[in-house]
């Protein structure tokens, strides 16, 4: 495997779209119910935890981009092989690839659960999962450009949902926010850790990076993407905190959907049904990118064709998604996934960066080595 990649011009995306991808992957299932998890730790100061998590994410993304910029056009799999060597590198890459795969699975399962809880209690999982995966497959085989386009489309058609927060704001009790900084630093920190499930997604830039055309602007655009994500989170969190009382919030699993229950238009009520349906468009880019990343991993590690990799991955995730879980098990899986993602997405980049620095110090980078075509 070559460490650096030459991507054909017709397959590249602009730095702006790289930002779009990062934002699109960050926003997903977590937003529907992150309020409760954070507020459990940080109480009514949960919004401070959101800001803290945002800051950490900014730094982490910056480190990731720094790592990538040590190479001319490498992705995570290439870097890991370069840093750890052939065998260890492949092993770690396999783990990371599995993480991408599990991420997609967790998102898929969570969405199916929401649909079955709120809209169609009797809709069989195999249908819903199949439909979603068909859409995913159809888009991925269009290439990264189509995936990026779909992500852009998904942001464009769902960003207006933020305006709906006007309705719950009419019921706001602002004193719920006070006194500010009532929670201890430890609680705030725990709240920030609890944000990890909602924050992850930016790590796809590890794999997308070689496909970006103007790499010098990736840093800027991804930072903007993270900023936009966290501004949206902050807004939703603030509205939730003034809309729900703490005791109520603790009993609300999907607080964002409950927020939308208050929205009504003269011709349409009960916007949570609209939101749940539209959320399909929000989570599709998540699943697409995660699966694309793991398929890319298979291609990079074992030289499979991307289409062949997908043909292996799609049935696998389909079968995985059919496993039945109860709500409690789902909570457990989400907790476990949250912890794992914290290590994989938030801590590991720093480690990798240090490793890359050490490696490049002992031995000059193979930056001049010829690339492999994508």
């Amino acid at each position, binding site marked *: 495997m070559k460490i650096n990649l030459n991507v054909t011009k017709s397959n590249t995306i602009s730095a702006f779209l790289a930002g779009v991808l990062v934002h699109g992957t960050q926003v997903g299932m977590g937003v529907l119910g992150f309020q409760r998890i954070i507020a459990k730790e940080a109480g*009514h100061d949960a919004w401070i935890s959101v800001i803290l998590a945002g800051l950490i994410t900014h730094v982490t993304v910056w480190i990731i981009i720094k790592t990538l910029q040590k190479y001319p056009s490498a992705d995570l799999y290439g870097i890991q092989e370069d840093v750890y060597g052939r065998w260890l590198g492949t092993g770690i890459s396999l783990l990371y690839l599995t993480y991408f795969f599990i991420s997609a699975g967790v998102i898929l399962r969570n969405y199916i659960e929401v649909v079955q809880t709120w809209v169609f209690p009797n*809709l069989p999982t195999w249908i819903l999962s199949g*439909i979603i995966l068909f859409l995913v497959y159809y888009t991925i085989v269009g290439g990264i450009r189509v995936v990026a386009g779909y992500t852009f489309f998904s942001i464009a058609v769902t960003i207006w949902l933020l305006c709906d927060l006007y309705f719950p704001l009419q019921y706001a*009790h602002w004193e719920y926010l006070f*006194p500010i900084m009532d929670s201890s630093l430890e609680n705030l920190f725990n709240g920030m850790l609890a944000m990890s499930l909602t924050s992850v997604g930016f790590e796809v830039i590890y794999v997308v990076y070689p496909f970006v055309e103007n790499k010098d602007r990736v840093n800027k655009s991804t930072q903007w993407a993270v900023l936009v994500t966290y501004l949206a989170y902050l807004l939703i969190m603030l509205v939730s905190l003034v809309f729900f*009382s703490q*005791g*109520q919030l603790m009993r609300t699993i999907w607080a964002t959907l*409950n927020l939308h229950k208050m929205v009504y238009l003269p011709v349409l009520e*009960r916007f949570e049904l609209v939101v749940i349906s539209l959320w399909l468009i929000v989570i599709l880019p998540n699943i697409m990118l995660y699966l694309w990343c793991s398929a890319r991993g298979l291609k990079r590690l074992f030289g499979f064709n991307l289409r062949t990799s997908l043909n292996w991955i799609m049935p696998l995730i389909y079968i995985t998604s059919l496993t039945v879980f109860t709500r409690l098990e789902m909570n457990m899986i989400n907790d476990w996934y949250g912890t794992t993602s914290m290590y994989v997405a938030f801590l590991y980049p720093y480690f990798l960066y240090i490793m890359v620095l050490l490696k490049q110090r002992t031995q000059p980078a193979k930056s001049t080595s010829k690339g492999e075509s994508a």
Partner: protein
Amino acid sequence: MRHDRKYAMPLLKRFLALWCSGILIVTGCSDRQIFDETGLATAVGYDLLKDGKIRGTSVMPSINPEARNKIQILSATGETSKGIRDKMNLQSDKRVLGGQIRVALYSENFAKKGLGSIIDTLYRDSSLSSRIYLCVFAGETYDMLTYPYSEQGNIGIYLYRLIEQNIRGEKIPSSTMHEFFRAYYEKGIDPVMPYIERKGNELKIKGIALFKGDRYVSWVTPKEAFLLKLIHGKFRIGSYDTSVPVAIFGESPKNHNSKKDQVQLVFDTISSHSKIKLSQVSPPIFDIHVELHARILELTIPLKLENAKLMKIMEHGLEKELEKELHKLISKLKSLDVDPTGFGSIYRSNRRGMANMTQAEWRKMFQDATFRFHVKSTIIRNGVMD
């Protein structure tokens, strides 16, 4: 690779076709709630029977063109609200569903025993709206819903409009299910609901039912409800009528027919905002600053209002009157030991480290608390006549 695809494609296509037809067959008969094949309850009422069971009554529009009545009423007894719904289904040609419930009524007796569990199931049910209005009815809701009203049409929708109109007009505080729950799960505030009564053919909002936790304790008049909102909330289009002694205008009553020596004043398009300050922590002292702008709509003696001094007097009279009424209300709330305005939340939000304050702690503090009202009123307009 090319060979692979050629081989894979027809298999994939066959699988897809099979799968699509599977979808059509399976989803075709699950989860369907076809609009005209469902009984859309618009209002439900719950009574507590003597044997401890709950009687539920639901009102549904009857869309059968051959039916004479415009509404269909089902009633059943059971232990839980969902059990009641199951029994109702046995009486109906259409599946009874709750997604269109606009109003949920509880009889006074039932409310006194505590509504927590039954409302909890409502909140848990994702098919129900959060904007359902909850109310307490003076009497049995069964009698009220089954009464043959002549003008109200669908009683569920009528009640919904009745309450909504009054909430929009700021006559009563908003009381959606969401707000009930918010107050119920919050330690420093007690929930309220509209209190409805029936007089013959007429339905009317008698006042506001006060809850202590999930138990109904008493009710207050709309005028007192206005004051509740004045303490903690904002008005944009409120209205208020009061009476002040004629003497304060420096005039003796010319017309001896006017009852006693009082002047009736009616204010409308009141806009107000309040600021509550916790001046002392223990025992708590609250300073409540209320600032309100009002337009005088009606007054029962012919006064010339061009006189600025007269306006001042009137403003002052209004302030004094409001402060007096507010004190009266607070002492009433204290005697009932309920806190519908949420002084507890304000107390919590003004002190650090009180996030885990319990309800009992707050109730004790509430009894010891002192409330000082500072009302400042401005009469900004006085109609087209001076």
